[in-house]
C-alpha cells in the first residue's frame, strides 16, 4: 500500500525545499555593523499592504541615514504575536534600542510598553492607545510618545465633502473599519459630527467592512440593490474599502455617479480621485509617519531628547492630514512619485514640525 522509499524521497525533497526557502530569505544585512545607539525595531501589522510598505519606507529612510538596518516585526494584526516577537528580539540583549510600533490593538498597548520598559527599550506607539493611559503616566521614561492621525477630523472632512457635493441634501451609507480600533470609531464619530452640521444629509446604514476591499464590495453591492437611486454617497472609512465600493458601483456603471469617499491617501485612491470615481480621500502620509515615529524613539534611546522634559503635546499628538479632491490631487500624485528621502539629522531639527496638536481627551473613547 505504502512504499517507504517513496516517502523517504519526498521527505528529503521537503527538507531540501525548506532549506532553500530558509537560506533565500535570510536577510543578508541582518547583522550589519551598527552606528551609535542600539537596534532600530519596527512593528507593523502586515507587509502586503501599500500603507505599511510606505510606512516601512519612512523607517528605512531614517535607518539608512544612520547606517543601520531596522529589525522588522510583523504581527499579522495579533498583539500576542507582536509580544512574543518582541520577547525574542529583546532576549538577545538590547542596549539603547528604539521601537516604533503599532501595538495592533488597544488591548496590547500597555503590555508592549511594559515589556519594552523592562528591557529598557524606548517606544513610540502608533494608532492604538486606550483612552485611560498616556506616555506620561505609564512607564514615562520608556514610552516616549504616541502618534496618530485625527480620525474624527478625517471622518468629518469626508462627510462635509459629501454634504457640499450633494448640495446639502442627500442619502448616504457608511462602511466602518475593524470596530475595536480607534481610527474606525473615530472616523464614524467624525461622520456623525458632520451630519449634525449638515441636517439634509441622511445616513441610511452603517456596516462593518473590517478595512477590507472585498467585504466593502459585498456591502456596497447589497446597498445598490436595496436603495437603488436613493443612495447618493458611500462613506468608506479607508481607501481599501472605498476601492471595494467603487468596484461594486462599476458593476452597475454607477461609478462617479454615486459619490465615494475614503481616507489614507493611497496611490490608487489618488488615481480614483483624479478619474472622478472617488470624491475625496484624506492624506495621511505613512512615509512621514514612519520617519517621525522612528526618529523620536531613536532620539530618546541615544539621549537626544529626554522624555521627562517633553510636554504632553509633544508626547501624544496627531500628525497633519489634508483632504485631497480633484483640485489638489496632482500635487499629491507628484509627491507619491518622488517621495522626499528623510534623514535623522533633518528630523532632529524639529521632531514636531508636522504635528497637528495634542490628541484631545476622550478621542480614544468609544462611547
Amino acid at each position, binding site marked *: 500500500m505504502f512504499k517507504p522509499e517513496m516517502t523517504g524521497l519526498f521527505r528529503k525533497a521537503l527538507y531540501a525545499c525548506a532549506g532553500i526557502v530558509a537560506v533565500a530569505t535570510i536577510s543578508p544585512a541582518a547583522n550589519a555593523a551598527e552606528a551609535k545607539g542600539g537596534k532600530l525595531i519596527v512593528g507593523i501589522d502586515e507587509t502586503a499592504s501599500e500603507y505599511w510598505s510606505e510606512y516601512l519606507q519612512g523607517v528605512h529612510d531614517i535607518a539608512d541615514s544612520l547606517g543601520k538596518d531596522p529589525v522588522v516585526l510583523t504581527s499579522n494584526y495579533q498583539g500576542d504575536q507582536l509580544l512574543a516577537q518582541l520577547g525574542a528580539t529583546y532576549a538577545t540583549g538590547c542596549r539603547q534600542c528604539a521601537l516604533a510600533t503599532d501595538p495592533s490593538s488597544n488591548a496590547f498597548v500597555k503590555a508592549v510598553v511594559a515589556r519594552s520598559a523592562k528591557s529598557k527599550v524606548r517606544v513610540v506607539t502608533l494608532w492604538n492607545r486606550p483612552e485611560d493611559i498616556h506616555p506620561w503616566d505609564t512607564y514615562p521614561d520608556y514610552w516616549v510618545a504616541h502618534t496618530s492621525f485625527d480620525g474624527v477630523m478625517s471622518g468629518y472632512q469626508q462627510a462635509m465633502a459629501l454634504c457640499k457635493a450633494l448640495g446639502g441634501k442627500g442619502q448616504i451609507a457608511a462602511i466602518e473599519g475593524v*470596530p475595536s480600533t480607534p481610527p474606525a470609531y473615530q472616523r464614524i464619530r467624525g461622520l456623525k459630527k458632520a451630519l449634525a452640521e449638515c441636517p439634509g444629509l441622511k445616513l441610511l446604514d452603517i456596516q462593518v467592512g473590517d478595512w477590507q476591499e472585498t467585504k466593502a464590495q459585498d456591502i456596497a453591492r447589497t446597498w445598490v440593490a436595496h436603495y437603488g437611486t436613493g443612495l447618493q454617497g458611500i462613506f468608506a472609512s479607508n481607501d481599501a474599502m472605498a476601492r471595494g465600493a467603487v468596484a461594486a458601483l462599476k458593476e452597475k456603471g454607477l461609478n462617479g455617479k454615486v459619490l465615494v469617499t475614503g481616507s489614507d491617501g493611497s496611490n490608487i485612491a489618488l488615481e480614483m480621485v483624479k478619474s472622478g470615481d472617488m470624491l475625496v480621500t484624506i492624506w495621511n502620509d505613512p512615509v512621514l509617519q514612519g520617519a517621525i515615529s522612528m526618529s523620536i524613539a531613536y532620539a530618546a534611546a541615544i539621549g537626544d531628547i529626554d522624555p521627562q522634559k517633553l510636554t504632553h503635546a509633544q508626547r501624544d499628538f496627531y500628525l497633519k492630514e489634508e483632504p485631497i479632491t480633484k483640485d489638489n490631487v496632482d500635487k499629491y500624485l507628484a509627491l507619491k512619485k518622488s517621495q522626499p528621502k528623510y534623514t535623522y539629522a533633518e528630523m532632529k531639527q524639529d521632531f514636531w514640525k508636522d504635528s497637528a496638536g495634542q490628541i484631545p481627551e476622550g478621542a480614544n473613547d468609544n462611547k
Partner: protein
Amino acid sequence: MTPSRTRSPASRAAQRWSPLLAGLRGRPFWAQFGGSVAALIVLSAGFQLISGSFLTLGNLRSVVEAAAVPAIIAAGISFVVIMGAIDLSVEGVMATASMVAALLVANGVNTNHLGVLGILLALAVSLAFGLANGILNALMRMPSLIVTLGMWFIGLGTAAVLFPQRVPQIRDDLLLGVARHGLLGFSLVVYVALVFVASAQAVLSHTTFGRMVYAIGGDEALLASSGLRTRGIKIAAFCVSSLFAGVGGLLLSAQLGSGNANIGNGHLFPAISASVLGGTLLTGGRGGAVQSALGALILEVLNNGLIQIGAGPYTRNIISGAVILTAFAASGVHRRQLLRVVK
C-alpha cells in the same frame, strides 16, 4: 498484501459502490435538494417579510453575483470534504493566485502583459498548491488538516513576498472583462461559476474519479484493504480544490480590478460551512458540488438579508451563527434515534 487482480481496481470500486450511487443518482430532485431549497425559501420569505425589499429583481441579482465566487470555492472544496478530509489552504491559494495573475497580466506596477498566459500561469500555481497538499497527505501520510493549514500560511506568505509595495491594478481587458461584461443582467462571473459547478458535479457523478472520491469518503479502510489505489485520487481531489480556489481568487481580482494579498480573507470557513450545509441538508449526508453551491447561496442570502433588514454589524455574526446551527439541527432531527457516529 497484494491481492490478485482480475479486474481493474476502479471498476471493482464502482461495482462495490454502485448500489449506493444508483440510490444517490436515482433519488428524486426533492430528496437531494429539498432541504437546501426549503432553507432558501424560508430565509427569503423571512427577510422579505421584515425588510420588504429582499425579493426584488435587483436584490436577487446582487445575491447571485455575490454568491458566484463562494459557490465555486465551495464546489471545489467539496471534493476534499466528501473524501472526509479537509482543505484549509484555500485563502492562501486565492491570495497567491491573485498576486501572480495581477503581476503577470497588464498591470499598473510592471511592464508584463502576458494576457491569457498570465492567467494560466496563476492557475498553474494554484494547481501546484493542490499538488503539494495531495502529495503531503496521500504520499507522506500527513493529516490533511495540518498539511493544508501549513499551506495556508505558505500561500499568504508567497503573496506577501510577491506584493510589489503598491497595489497592482489590473489592466488586462480579458480578465477585467469577465467582471465588467454581462449577459441577461448577470455578469460573466456568474456564468463562469455555473460552468465550474456543473462540471464539478458532472465529474463527481459520472466519472470513475468522482465515484472513487465518494468511495474514499465512504470507507477508506475497506477500500484500501481491498487493494485499491487511492493515492492518485486523493491528490487529484486536492488539485481540484486548489484550482477552484485559484479561479475564485482570479474572479475576485477581476471584480476588484486589482491584485490583493488579502483577497481570500474570510472565504475559508463559509466555503466549508457551505459544503457541509449543502451536504447535510441532503438527507443522507453525502453532498456534491451542486449541494455545496446551494449552501454558498444560502449563506449569501443570509449575509444579504441581514444587511437588508438592518441587523447591527455586531449582531450579524450572532444571528448567522445561530441560523446555521438551527439549520443543521433541524435537518438532523430525524436521525437522532439512529446509532450514528458523529465526529
